[in-house]
C-alpha cells in the first residue's frame, strides 16, 4: 500500500474539520460555501408611483425571479436572453438533447430510459429557504435526494488493493478506534488536567456506547459491533446460518488510506441531510418560473452594449430571430444577470470601480459526465440505493440516482464531477477533453470501482462549463481578498444599472445565491424608485 501523504492544504483541512470546526467554518464562510441563507420571507415591494420599465438581461433564475416580483409590484418588465431557452445554468439533459459547445463539438444525450442529467445545480439544502419558498409557491414537487448513503463507497487507488470500502464501515471504525484511544488516555490519567474525575467517568461510559467499546474499552468484533457496522453473516430466519459480526478495519490502514479524509465532505452544512431535488430534473424549478414570465422573455437576443444616462438605460442587442439585426431597448432601470466572465467583454457604461469589479472575478472550472447503463447494478449487486461514492481517482465522485429505485431497464449515473473550489486540478484536465474522450475517461476510471461498467454501458454525455459560451466558466470564484476589494461595488446600484446573480451573493454557485441576489437588488431598486 502506498502511504497517504497529505499535502499541507489537506492537513490543514483535516485539522480544521477534526480538531477545530470553527477555523474551518470561518474559511468556508469566506468562500461562501457554508453561508446561512439570508432569506427572510416574501419580498415586499412598494411598486412605482407611475409607469416604470425595467429591462432584465438574462433569463436564468435571478432574472426570472426579478421579473416575476417586479411585475407583481406594478413595474413593466422585459427580459432579453441570449439562448433559445430560459433557465440559465439550471438545466437538465434528457435523451434526444443536443448541445454544441465552444470548439464545435456536439454533446449528444442518447439516454433511452427516463434518467436525466443536471449539468449545473442538482440538489437543494433545506436551509436554502428562498428556493423552497418558490418551489412551494410555484408548485414544484421536490423529492428526497440521498446525499449520504452508508452503503456507498470511499475509494483510493492506493489503498486496500484498490477495493472500495463502505462509507458506514469507515465512519464507524474511525469512531470506534478514536473512542478506544481516548478511553486509553483517560484511563492512564493522561487527561486528568483537562477533565474532572466525575466527568472522566461519564466520558468513559459515553465512549463505550458511542464507539461501541467492550468492557475493556476495546473496539473489536462483537455482536454489539455487528449491530452497528453490519455482519459477515447477517441474522436470518428459520434454520439459516448463525449470524457473525463483521470485522473492523485496522486504524493504521484507515489512516494511511486517506479514506478518513474523504468522509469530511459529509460534515459540510451545505450537504447536511436531508437534501432534496425537484422531481424529474432540476429544470423543473426554472421551468416553473418560466411559466410565470415567459410572455416577457425575448429569446435569441445577444446583448452587445449597455448605455445609461440620468434618464434611463439603452441596451443594444443582436436579434437572432431577425437575422442578427441590431436593435435597442430602452428602460428606466436595468437588472443585468449576465455572468461577469461574459459581461467584462461587453461595452458597459458604468463607474470605473464597477468596471474593475466586473473584471476582477475569475470563473471557476467545473465539469460533469453522466453514463447510462442497462441495469441498476449498483442497487442489484452492491446494495447502493442513492447517495454518492468518493474516490481519489480523477473522476472524484459517482452519484447514484435518488429516483426510480428497484426499476428494471436503463438508469443514469452522474459518473464524474468536480469543481475548482475543492482545489483539485482534475477539472481543468477533464475540460480539455472532447465529449467522447470524457466518456472514455469516465468509463476507464469508473470500472475500477464498478467493474460492471464494461458489460452494462449504453451511452454517455457530459458538460464542461468553460466550453459554454454564455457563461465561460461555472461560477464566480471569489476569494476573501476579492470580496474585500470589489463585492460591495459589484452589488451597488450604478446610476440606472444593478447586477444580480450568484456572483452577487455570498452563496456562489447555488440557486439560493442567485435568488437572494435578485431579491435584494429589486428591493433596493424599488427603494430608489420611491426615494
Amino acid at each position, binding site marked *: 500500500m502506498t502511504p497517504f501523504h497529505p499535502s499541507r492544504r489537506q492537513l490543514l483541512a483535516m485539522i480544521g474539520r477534526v480538531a477545530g470546526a470553527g477555523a474551518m467554518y470561518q474559511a468556508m464562510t469566506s468562500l461562501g460555501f457554508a453561508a446561512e441563507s439570508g432569506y427572510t420571507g416574501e419580498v415586499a415591494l412598494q411598486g412605482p408611483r407611475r409607469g416604470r420599465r425595467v429591462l432584465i438581461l438574462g433569463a436564468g433564475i435571478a432574472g426570472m425571479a426579478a421579473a416575476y416580483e417586479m411585475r407583481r409590484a406594478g413595474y413593466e418588465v422585459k427580459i432579453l436572453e441570449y439562448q433559445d431557452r430560459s433557465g440559465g445554468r439550471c438545466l437538465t439533459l434528457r435523451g434526444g438533447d443536443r448541445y454544441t459547445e465552444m*470548439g464545435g463539438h456536439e454533446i449528444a444525450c442518447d439516454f433511452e430510459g427516463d434518467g436525466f442529467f443536471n449539468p449545473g445545480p442538482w440538489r437543494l439544502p433545506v436551509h436554502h429557504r428562498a428556493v423552497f419558498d418558490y418551489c412551494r409557491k410555484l408548485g414544484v414537487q421536490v423529492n428526497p435526494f440521498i446525499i449520504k448513503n452508508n452503503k456507498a463507497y470511499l475509494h483510493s487507488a492506493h489503498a486496500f488493493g484498490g477495493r472500495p470500502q463502505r462509507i458506514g464501515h469507515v465512519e464507524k471504525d474511525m469512531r470506534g478506534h478514536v473512542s478506544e484511544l481516548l478511553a486509553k488516555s483517560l484511563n492512564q490519567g493522561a487527561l486528568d488536567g483537562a477533565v474532572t474525575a466525575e466527568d472522566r467517568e461519564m466520558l468513559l461510559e459515553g465512549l463505550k456506547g458511542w464507539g461501541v467499546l467492550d468492557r475493556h474499552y476495546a473496539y473489536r468484533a462483537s455482536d454489539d459491533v455487528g449491530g452497528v457496522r453490519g455482519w459477515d453473516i447477517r441474522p436470518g430466519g428459520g434454520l439459516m446460518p448463525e449470524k457473525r459480526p463483521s470485522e473492523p478495519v485496522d486504524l493504521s490502514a484507515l489512516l494511511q488510506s486517506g479514506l478518513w479524509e474523504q468522509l469530511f465532505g459529509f460534515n459540510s452544512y451545505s450537504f447536511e441531510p436531508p437534501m432534496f431535488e425537484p422531481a424529474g430534473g432540476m429544470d423543473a424549478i426554472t421551468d416553473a418560473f418560466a411559466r410565470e414570465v415567459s410572455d416577457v422573455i425575448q429569446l435569441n437576443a445577444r446583448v452587445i452594449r449597455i448605455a445609461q444616462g440620468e434618464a434611463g438605460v439603452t441596451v443594444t442587442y443582436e436579434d437572432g430571430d431577425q437575422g442578427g439585426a441590431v436593435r435597442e431597448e430602452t428602460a428606466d432601470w436595468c437588472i443585468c444577470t449576465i455572468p461577469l466572465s461574459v459581461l467584462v467583454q461587453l461595452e458597459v457604461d458604468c463607474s470605473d470601480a464597477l468596471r474593475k469589479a466586473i473584471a476582477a472575478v475569475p*470563473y471557476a472550472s467545473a465539469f460533469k459526465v453522466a453514463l447510462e447503463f442497462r441495469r441498476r447494478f449498483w442497487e442489484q449487486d452492491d446494495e447502493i440505493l442513492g447517495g454518492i461514492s468518493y474516490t481519489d481517482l480523477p473522476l472524484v465522485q459517482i452519484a447514484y440516482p435518488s429516483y426510480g429505485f428497484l426499476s428494471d431497464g436503463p438508469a443514469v449515473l452522474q459518473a464524474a464531477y468536480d469543481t475548482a473550489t475543492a482545489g483539485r486540478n482534475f477539472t481543468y484536465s477533464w475540460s480539455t477533453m472532447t465529449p467522447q474522450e470524457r466518456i472514455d475517461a469516465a468509463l476507464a476510471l469508473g470500472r475500477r470501482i464498478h467493474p460492471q461498467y464494461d458489460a452494462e454501458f449504453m451511452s454517455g454525455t457530459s458538460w464542461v462549463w468553460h466550453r459554454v459560451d454564455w457563461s465561460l466558466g461555472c461560477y464566480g470564484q471569489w476569494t476573501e481578498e476579492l470580496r474585500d476589494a470589489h463585492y460591495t461595488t459589484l452589488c451597488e446600484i450604478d446610476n440606472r444599472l444593478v447586477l444580480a446573480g450568484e456572483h452577487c451573493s455570498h452563496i456562489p454557485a447555488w440557486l439560493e445565491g442567485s435568488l437572494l441576489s435578485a431579491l435584494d437588488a429589486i428591493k433596493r431598486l424599488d427603494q430608489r424608485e420611491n426615494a
Partner: protein
Amino acid sequence: MQRQTLIVLAALTLLTTAAPAQQDAPPAQTEPQAQAPQQAQAIDTLLSRFSDNPDRFTQTDGEALYRTTCQACHMEDGKGAAGAGAHPPLAGNPKLMSKHFLAGVILTGYHGMPRFGDQMSDEQIAAVTNYVRSNFGNDFPDPITPDQVSRLRPQENED
C-alpha cells in the same frame, strides 16, 4: 502546525494494534478485461493528461501543460472560440509579444480566466508560456526563464 499533525498521526498509527482484514466488503476489484492493445494505449495516453497530484500539476513539458489546462478554452489549435462571450485566440495574438504579460496572466488570471500560479511552479509557467509563444504560428524569439517568472509572482501566491 503541519509538523505537529504528522506527529499526532504517526502516534495514532503506532498506538494501534493490527486488526484482522476487513470482511463484509464490496466485491473484489476485477482485473480489466483484455482490451485491444491500441485501445488500451489510447486510454493510457488520455488518462496521462491528469496530473498525478491533484494539488499541483505534475507535467513539466510546455505542450503537456497546455494540453491539460489551456486547451480547455483556447482549444487544440490555439484559436480560442467565440459565441456570447469569447475565449481569445493565442494564435497570432499581438498581446503575446510580451512574455511578461502572458506569464503574468497564467500566474494571476485575467478577467474570467482563473489563475494557475498556485498550481504550477516557476519552471512550469515558463515552459507553458514559451510553448504558447512558439507554437500556433507564433514565433517569438525571447523565451522567459523560471527566474523571470518568479519575479512576476505575487507574494500571496506563495504556498
